[in-house]
Every structure is written in structure tokens, then in C-alpha cells.
């Protein structure tokens, strides 16, 4: 596989940026991506949506008793959620800085909140915006911001965590998922961290403490005792270097390896610690090194990358609502992870069913399938997806003959070949293939189809 294509998949969501990486070089490309100021502008459907749980409730209260109107509100929220998914996906795909979006999505999957459970799309939007603001800043600050996020407070029920009536949910996940990982704290630590979080509930833009609901008695966290609040608790947790190693392992998983080698976790954990949890220099060093030294074949491709890559390879303008719909059935429902642990990635991305579904979609794009089309149209009816353009167009830069085409496509698409594959490809595109023949494009698409369905294409 050509290095720039491989790295485009790792640093973004498709091979769209491969040519830029190739022309400016990896270092400059990374610099450009990491230095940029990413703007997040509030979309209209968010601006018009309820701004808090109370607003949402009073909307429902206003039509109390009228089943039809209540249902309409439910539908409206569902549609707003769906719009949000399409909107972030459009950002992922069309951004000039896909690496930044990929980092943001990593953190969204790290600090999971779901549209379904938060129920206030605006809060989820703020969560996304906050991540963008701090994703290249200090990790400790990011964790603090996240714990104060209305969306996260709602998702982990911290509004119910009050003095003398602890709800451990947020406290537990702060330790298990956001900082140390399982096995590095006791049940007692969880209780005390949870107590430090008592009274932290919803605020206007971000969470705030309700003084009367806050437990002001002394807490003991990792041996220190005091009347700690969320920020103090996080400071205490961050005294443990394990926080760095736990994060680094997950980052390496997200960008490079389903099974990150231990020595790399050590290495980049130290880098993050050296920089006192500053994320930008850490990311810069890790990307620079690993994009150069790590070969392909280490990571199962997630559905988002799979489908965006296919769209771009075949010059199909993505319909983001359709994509949101497909990703849901591929177990990568954007902003609706199945649980607080987020997508696990790796082998979890593929089952015989999801693999078969990927293949069916490729077949549909290339061979067409009226039944499938009808079914799809029917299922999408109520989501107002608009026009869907699904006419594939495959462009080869060097379509001189069969062997140049095969070489180019395999180099662009898969990390390695094997003799059997080569012989099968040679059967699809025979040596005497005429690139000027009337059906040349259709036959080239068959090569694409074969490659896209191969196990190798499921892997980066």
C-alpha cells in the first residue's frame, strides 16, 4: 500500500487527503493539521432546539394530555438527533482538518454521551464543542471540563448524586474509563470520589454545584483527606502516572493498533508525562513516529472509515443521513454508543453479519439491486434524506493496461496481497483488457468490488 494512502486512512476517515500528504510531506501535513484553529459554528437545528432538560420538559408539559402532540415532540427530538449525526459526519468528511475531527471523535468515544439518553441535543452539541476546544490542550483540563459537561452529568446520572444519597455512576466511570482503568483503585476510592461529585448538577452552559446538595464532610482519596470537590479529586487522580498509560493505550488503539505493543504504550506514556499531559506535543510525536515506522495490517477498519473511503474511491457524494443510518446497523451509531464504555473497536467492528452487510452494500453500488433499493428507500422514508446519488465512478490515474490498473488499485486499497488474490484479480482483469473498451469502466469496477470485499480491505 502506498504510504500516503495508509496514513490518510489513519489520520482521517478516507484516502481523500492522500494526495496532499504525498505532496507536502508527512511532517508539514501534521503541522498544518495540529496548528489549525478549528471553528465550530452552531448549526440552525441546534439553535432552535430546547436548551435544557427543563425546556424539553416544559415543551412536553405544554401539550400534556394530547397524545398526538407529545408524539410529535418525540419525533422532533429524534429528527434533531438524526440531523446532529448527519451534521457531525459531514464535518468529519468535509473538514479541511480531518485529523482534528478524528481526535475529537476519539474523545467522544472516551467520554461517551449519547443523544438517546441525554435527550437535549444542545447539550450534546456543547459536549462536542468543548472537546474541540480542549482536545489539543491539557488532558487534565479536558477531564475536568468533561466532568462539568451537562451532557455527561445527565448521561451518568450525576444530578442524582447528592449528599447522603450517593449515586456512584460518574465517580466510578471517572476512575474506570476516564483516568486509571480497572484495577487501579478500590471500591472505597469510588465512594469517596463520588462524594466529591455530590451536588454537581446541570447549569446553563456547563454543570455547577448545588451547595445544599454537596457533601462537605472530609473525603479520603488515595490516602489524602480533605473536603474535595470534582477538580480536587481529578488533581489527586492525575498524580498517578497510570492515567497517562491508560490514555495512551486507547489512543494507539484508535489510530494504529488493535493490540498496541507494550513498549509503545510505555514510550508514549512517558512522552505524555514529560509534557505534563499537554496533548498537542504528545500527538505530534506519536503521529510523526508511528506514521513513519508502523506498517499496515494492524487494525480492523471501523465502519465510518470503510463507508467514507468507499464513497470517495467511487466518487459518490455521501448522503450523511444515509450514512448515519448505515453506521447504526454497523454497530457504530454515531453519538449513540451501546454503553458507557464506548465502541471497543478491533474485532468488535466485524461480525459475520456486519461483514456481509458491508459486502452487500458494495454489491449494491456496483451491481445494483432493485429489491435492496426499495427496502432502503422504505426504511429511510421518515428521515427526509433527500436525494441519494449512488452512481459509482472509478478513476485510475494510469489506466494503460490491466497490470497498471491492478497495481494502482491494490496499492491504493489494500495493505498486502497474496498469490491467490493476484491470480483471481488476473482473472477479473485479464492481461489483454482494453482500457478503451465500452465496458471498461464496469470491469474496472469489478476489480474494485473484489478488492473492497476482500478481508484485506477490512484492515488498515
Amino acid at each position, binding site marked *: 500500500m502506498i504510504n500516503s494512502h495508509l496514513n490518510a486512512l489513519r489520520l482521517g476517515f478516507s484516502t481523500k487527503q492522500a494526495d496532499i500528504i504525498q505532496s507536502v510531506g508527512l511532517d508539514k501535513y501534521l503541522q498544518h493539521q495540529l496548528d489549525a484553529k478549528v471553528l465550530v459554528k452552531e448549526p440552525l437545528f441546534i439553535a432552535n432546539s430546547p436548551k435544557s432538560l427543563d425546556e424539553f420538559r416544559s415543551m412536553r408539559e405544554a401539550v400534556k394530555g394530547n397524545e398526538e402532540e407529545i408524539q410529535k415532540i418525540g419525533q422532533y427530538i429524534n429528527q434533531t438527533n438524526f440531523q446532529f449525526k448527519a451534521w457531525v459526519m459531514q464535518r468529519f468528511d468535509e473538514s479541511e482538518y480531518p485529523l482534528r475531527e478524528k481526535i475529537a471523535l476519539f474523545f467522544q468515544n472516551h467520554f461517551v454521551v449519547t443523544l438517546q439518553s441525554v435527550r437535549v441535543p444542545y447539550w450534546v452539541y456543547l459536549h462536542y464543542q468543548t472537546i474541540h476546544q480542549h482536545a489539543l490542550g491539557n488532558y487534565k483540563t479536558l477531564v475536568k471540563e468533561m466532568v462539568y459537561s451537562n451532557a455527561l452529568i445527565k448521561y451518568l446520572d450525576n444530578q442524582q448524586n447528592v449528599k447522603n444519597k450517593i*449515586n456512584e455512576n460518574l465517580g466510578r466511570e471517572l476512575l474506570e474509563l476516564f483516568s486509571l482503568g480497572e484495577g487501579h483503585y478500590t471500591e472505597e476510592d469510588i465512594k469517596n470520589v463520588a462524594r466529591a461529585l455530590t451536588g454537581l448538577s446541570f447549569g446553563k452552559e456547563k454543570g455547577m454545584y448545588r451547595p445544599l446538595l454537596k457533601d462537605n464532610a472530609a473525603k479520603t482519596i488515595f490516602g489524602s483527606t480533605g473536603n474535595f470537590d470534582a477538580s480536587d479529586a481529578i488533581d489527586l487522580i492525575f498524580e498517578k502516572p497510570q492515567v497517562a498509560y491508560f490514555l495512551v493505550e486507547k489512543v494507539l488503539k484508535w489510530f494504529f493498533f488493535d493490540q498496541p505493543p507494550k513498549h509503545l504504550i510505555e514510550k508514549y506514556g512517558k512522552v505524555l508525562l514529560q509534557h505534563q499531559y499537554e496533548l498537542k506535543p504528545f500527538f505530534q510525536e506519536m503521529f510523526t513516529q508511528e506514521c513513519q515506522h508502523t506498517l499496515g*495490517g494492524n487494525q480492523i477498519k471501523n465502519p465510518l472509515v470503510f463507508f467514507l473511503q468507499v464513497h470517495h474511491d467511487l466518487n459518490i457524494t455521501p448522503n450523511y443521513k444515509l450514512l448515519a443510518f448505515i453506521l447504526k446497523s454497523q*454497530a457504530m451509531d454515531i453519538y449513540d454508543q451501546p454503553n458507557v464504555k464506548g465502541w471497543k473497536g478491533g474485532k468488535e467492528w466485524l461480525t*459475520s*453479519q456486519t461483514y456481509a452487510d458491508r459486502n452487500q452494500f458494495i454489491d449494491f453500488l456496483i451491481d445494483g439491486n432493485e429489491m435492496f433499493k426499495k427496502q432502503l428507500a422504505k426504511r429511510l422514508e421518515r428521515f427526509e434524506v433527500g436525494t441519494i446519488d449512488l452512481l459509482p465512478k472509478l478513476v485510475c490515474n494510469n489506466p494503460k493496461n490491466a497490470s497498471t490498473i491492478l497495481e494502482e488499485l491494490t496499492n491504493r486499497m489494500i495493505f498486502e496481497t*497474496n498469490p491467490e488474490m493476484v491470480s483471481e484479480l488476473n482473472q477479473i482483469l485479464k492481461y489483454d483488457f482494453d482500457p478503451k473498451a465500452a465496458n471498461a469502466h464496469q470491469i474496472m469496477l469489478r476489480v474494485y468490488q473484489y478488492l473492497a470485499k476482500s478481508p484485506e480491505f477490512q*484492515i488498515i
Partner: protein
Amino acid sequence: MERRKFLQLTATGTGGWLVLPQFLSASNWLANEENSSDQVLVFIQLNGGNDGLNTFIPCTDPLYYEHRPKIGITKSEIIQAINGMGFHPALKDLAKIAQEGNLTVIQNVGYPNPNRSHFRSQEIWQTASDSHQYLDHGWLGRFLDIQCANELVPSLNIDPIDNLALKAQKSNGLTVKDFQKIKCYQTEGEELKLSNNPQLDFVRKLQYASTEGMEEIGKALKKAAYFNESYANNPLAKNLEWMAKLIKGGLHSKVYYSSLNGFDTHNNQLQIHQKQLGILNDAIYSFYKDLKKNALLSRVTLVVFSEFGRRVKENGSGTDHGTAGPMLIIGGNNKGKVIGSNPNLSQLQQGDLVFETDFRSVYATLLQAKFQFSPASIQIKNEALKGVF
């Protein structure tokens, strides 16, 4: 507890099933098949930590109501079973199955040093590991690797995601999310190529398993096309219906697996739990009726479990993560008893029940009784639990 006493103490009416003419039964129809006597295990995993105390309820224990003033189930609503225990009202048909002597309840099942994280505790149940041990393969996967290494579909998981319990080294079981859909995929078999890249091998095996397995499934479904039973209308019931079809159609799978979400009842437990238990009850009862009618009940053992129970004391309108809980066994010629003592609410550990039976000893019983398989060969060292079969 003996079946006879069950019959006396159960408060619900008697069901009683019509005796069907022999020619309608699947076992008769399958009499000439070589696998007509094969044993099959079916698992239903309740995700999120099912509240055992509100499932099989210690309704005569005053401590139960003391700990659960809000979410305790009113005594008059509980379906009295035996010895101070009773079923949640949503489980009315499970009570009926118990009354018919085909349901065993194993009380207080758990493991030492319980972990209250969903993911980790599920992993522990699925791999049958110790609390601090991490295993790559599932307990059923390890069993199937030895027991049916040459089967194309040693296990079938009807669920959106693969289940770690079935993850094996040699034989890749099949995961199907939606049977309606899967019927469309028919591709010719391919040779399995093995490389030194684990990711690639995984995907290749998946490709192989999906193509090869689909053929077997297609054959079984064709054979079972004559059978048509009516099932409750919920997704779990649908999954069980597919399983019943495949069992009747002679699919060689030894293990079937499915799950039901929604048991993490931190809030609004009364309502949510009632609904989920209702789904469970309806699905199982449909499956049970089908198996009984087709004389398959002795061949099929259904096991229901969850990764943990919930905290004894209620918290707001729900409960927090706990430890031990009941396991249910239906069919497979079980003895229809209640095994183990009633939950001891006066001796708690950090507010949780102390486990009495290790879940691995239940696994050991299943393997020994149903397959004459030695649990030690898949690193399950616990002694088999007595009195189930």
C-alpha cells in the same frame, strides 16, 4: 425442593397442554436423523445486571421490605412458589413452567471477589475466569473447540454483536443479527488461507464462517419449513423461534445464545423491570410451548443468567450494581427444584448478597450432565453442582 411441593404451593391456575398426535412432533419426524438425540444448550444473557431479589423474591423476609420500601414488590402480587420465595408477577408463565416441574432455580449464584463493572463481570461469566484472571476465549468456545472441532456451525449467536462466551480458537461460531436478512447471502465456499497476521486471520475466518455456515443454516431452515408455531411478538421471542426452527431442522450447533438488554435499573426500576421481565417471560414461554409440543424439551436446556444481581438496598427509584443472583434452568430433564438457601438479607457484604454457588459449578454441571464432558479440560476446576439434572 421437590416438584410435588411446587405444585401445591404455586398460586396460579393449572395450564395443562393438549396431547398432540405423534405425527406432529418434531422428534418423531427427526427419528431417523443421526443427531436426533443430541443435547442442545440455549443461553439467554440478561444484560445490565438483573435484580435477582425482584425476580425470585424472598417475600416473607421482612428485611426485604425494609431494604426496599419503594421498589419492593407488593406481597399480594408476588406469585408464591415455595419456602418463602415467589416470582415477580411478570413471570407468571415461568411460575407455570416451575409448577410443571421443568424449571430449576439456583439461588445466590456468583463468584469470589465480585466485580461490579458490567463489562468486566460479563467477561468473567463469559470466560469462566477467576475474578482477577483474563482469558481470551470463552468457556463455550473452549468447550466447542474440543467437542465439535469439525462442525461448520458449532454455535449460533443471534445478537447484534459477537459473544465472548463463544469465542473459540479453532471453530468460529456464527453471529447473526437478523435472520430475515441473512438468508440473502449465499456465496460459494473459499479455501481458508492462514497468515501470520491475527487481524487478517480473524477477518478471513469470519468470511469463511459466514459463507460456509450460511449453507448449513439454509439447509436446516428448509427442513424445518413444515413447522410453524406462534410466538410472542418481541425480538427475544423471535430469536428463540429461529433457534427452535434450526434445532428442528437438524442444525448441528450444540450451543445457541442470545441476550436481552435493559436490566441496568438505576432508575425507574419498577416499570422497566416489569417490562423486561414480561418480555423474558413471554419469549421463554413461547419457546417452552413449542419445545414441549414437539417433544424436544428433554433435548434442549435453556439457561438464563445475568452478570450480577443488584444492591439489596434500593437507591432512589432503582438499585445499584450488586453481586449474586439467581440462575434459571428450563428443560433438559432438570429436576425442577429450588437449589440453595434463600438470600440472606441479614448478612451482607458491602450491602450486597454473599454468593453461595459459584457460576462455574453450574457450567460444570451443564457440561457433565449434558455432554459427559470433563470441565477440567477447559480449566473449570469447580465441582459440578448437584441436584440440577
